[in-house]
């Protein structure tokens, strides 16, 4: 039997007593990049948090397999240690915890280490940060673009096998979208031949601008907690641009 990297079957999720996701099936193989589209409130972020194992998101049905293991009841820590990573849409600021402290943990350095790995330092500079910035409390007073860059930087230090990006491009200027896309391509090993890629990704985007730079294999449209359709990213985006999510509602009815 061939094991996929991530297999989500028949998933239903409840948040604060409300069913937000119903009947979600999603399969992502090693080396693939999928896009998740859908209107505000459709449940995209909810799917991410559920895959991460945040306690508020209760799986009421179905299961999640990662690397062949049923992780439905695993803690977030265990999932992350198995190779799941995420960049958040709106990460919290933590007073007194510096970006550098987190990078140390992620890159596997000792917490007491005086300095970051030179390799990580190189990443810091690539993302247009300097030493001073590392000293700042994480996300505290970061600009929108800085938040997104810091999230990607953390993923680069962490090197996960399956990465979820929640709107990495929203609120980011054109120049920085290209920079972020470049790093996302590195994270997803886009420089390697298709068959050689080991890393996979699931990317939420509203405008799809970042897809001009990050090639995705498949797109899914999430409507009202269900996957309405899946297919070629360019075609689906094109439809949505032309008719909005109306078309997808019809799709939903057909399915």
């Amino acid at each position, binding site marked *: 039997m061939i094991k996929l990297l991530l297999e989500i079957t028949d998933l239903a999720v409840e948040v604060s007593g409300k069913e937000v996701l119903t009947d979600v099936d999603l399969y992502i193989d090693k080396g693939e990049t999928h896009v998740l589209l859908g209107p505000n409130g459709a449940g995209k972020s909810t799917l991410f948090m559920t895959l991460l194992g945040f306690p508020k998101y209760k799986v009421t049905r179905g299961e999640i397999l990662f690397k062949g293991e049923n992780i439905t009841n695993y803690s977030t820590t265990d999932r992350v240690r198995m190779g799941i990573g995420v960049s958040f849409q709106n990460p919290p600021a933590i007073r007194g915890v*510096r970006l550098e402290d987190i990078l140390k943990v992620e890159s596997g350095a000792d917490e007491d280490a005086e300095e970051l790995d030179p390799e990580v330092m190189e990443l810091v500079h690539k993302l247009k940060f300097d030493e001073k910035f590392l000293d700042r409390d994480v996300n505290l007073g970061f600009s929108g673009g800085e938040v997104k860059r810091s999230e990607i930087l953390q993923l680069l230090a962490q090197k996960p096998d399956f990465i979820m990006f929640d709107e990495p491009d929203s609120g980011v200027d054109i120049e920085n979208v290209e920079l972020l896309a470049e790093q996302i391509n590195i994270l997803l090993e886009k420089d390697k031949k298709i068959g050689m890629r080991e890393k996979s990704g699931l990317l939420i985007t509203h405008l799809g601008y970042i897809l001009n730079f990050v090639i995705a294999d498949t797109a899914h449209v999430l409507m009202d907690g269900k996957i309405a359709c899946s297919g070629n990213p360019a075609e689906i985006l094109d439809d949505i641009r032309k008719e909005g999510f109306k078309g997808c509602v019809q799709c939903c009815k057909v399915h």
Partner: protein
Amino acid sequence: MLQSTLKKAEKAKEKKALYGEDIDLEKFIKEEADEHENVTKATEVPKKVQESLLKIGVDPSEKERSGTFIQVDQSGVCTTCASESVEIMGLNVALDKYKWLKDYMWKAVAPDTDKYTAQAAIRESKEYPSGYFIRSLPDSKEIFPLQACMFIGDEQVMQTAHNIIVAEENSELHIITGCATGEDVSSALHVGVSEFYLKKGAKITFTMIHNWAEQVEVRPRTGIMVGDNATYISNYILTSPVKSIQSYPTAYCTGENSRVVFQSILGGLKDSVLDLGSRVLLEGSGSSAEMISRAVSKDQSQVYSRGHLAGRTQNVKGHLECHGLVLSDDSMIYAVPELEGSATELEMSHEAAVGKIAEEEVLYLTSRGLSEEEAASMIVRGFLSMDITGLPPELAAETKNMIDMSLKGM
């Protein structure tokens, strides 16, 4: 000692302190001042003392220190000074050397404040004045700090100390002090009376780390007189268990444009009862104060974080801030910020918040691979590790390390 001082002290012998559990002073042994041997260098004090010193920022190698004073129980055992700008010596020595010093005794702390000050005053008059005297000479600026340590080495002792610190006009003085207890001491009492006098344009930074044993009771009494254009900065760190500590240092900003900063990091652990405050009386025109505390309560600890800011003349300003994190259901934080304004044209504010760790923050860190415990600990350490201001760069870096070290166990 002045007869009037002694008389006041005698009268206050039974006077309970306003805050903190009352302690029966009879339970404790009063050791003689020559019980412990004198040495000429900090590296010669007993090993068990040296090991504790490092934990409280007092470096036995005396590297980058301008001088050292170590008191063990009631005995001043080590005094060294490597600077021309500052003086450090046992209070008894200083009283013989400087006739004027008696005028600084019990002027910033009243001998009849409570039974503890009374006890210290009476004992000092009957036996031998313990504690240290520190002075920075006029117009001097010594960037290397002086270090002083109060160490309790024997079981059941009552350690009393009377410290006088004088910063002469336009001088700058940095002091690191720590208090610790020997590993084998389970019960003891420390009463430390500290009086600070900052003359015109002087600056003192006073960084203090407490590392007592679990059954030790501590009652420091501190008064600070701040003259014209003078600045006093206090950094206080306590992150180890203690039976009880109660202290409420008071700064008198009588000088024009005088300034005081109190910063405290309080970690309540096990059964500790911490009752710590700071009080600033703004009495000089243009004087100002900032009082910031961060408190965390764990286990069964009780933490009282008090602050009192009084504006008593025009054109003064002050800010009082206490933030607390309650980490266990059996622990407690009680924040009492008080503002008192008795003049027009003043600007005073306070900010107090007591809460729990934000779950969202813990989750964020677990999504980076930390366990929940590791995440909580990182957040708590971050919460407590405030930026310490007012120190020269080298000392600031060292102090930061000291704080990081103190926060390891949190």
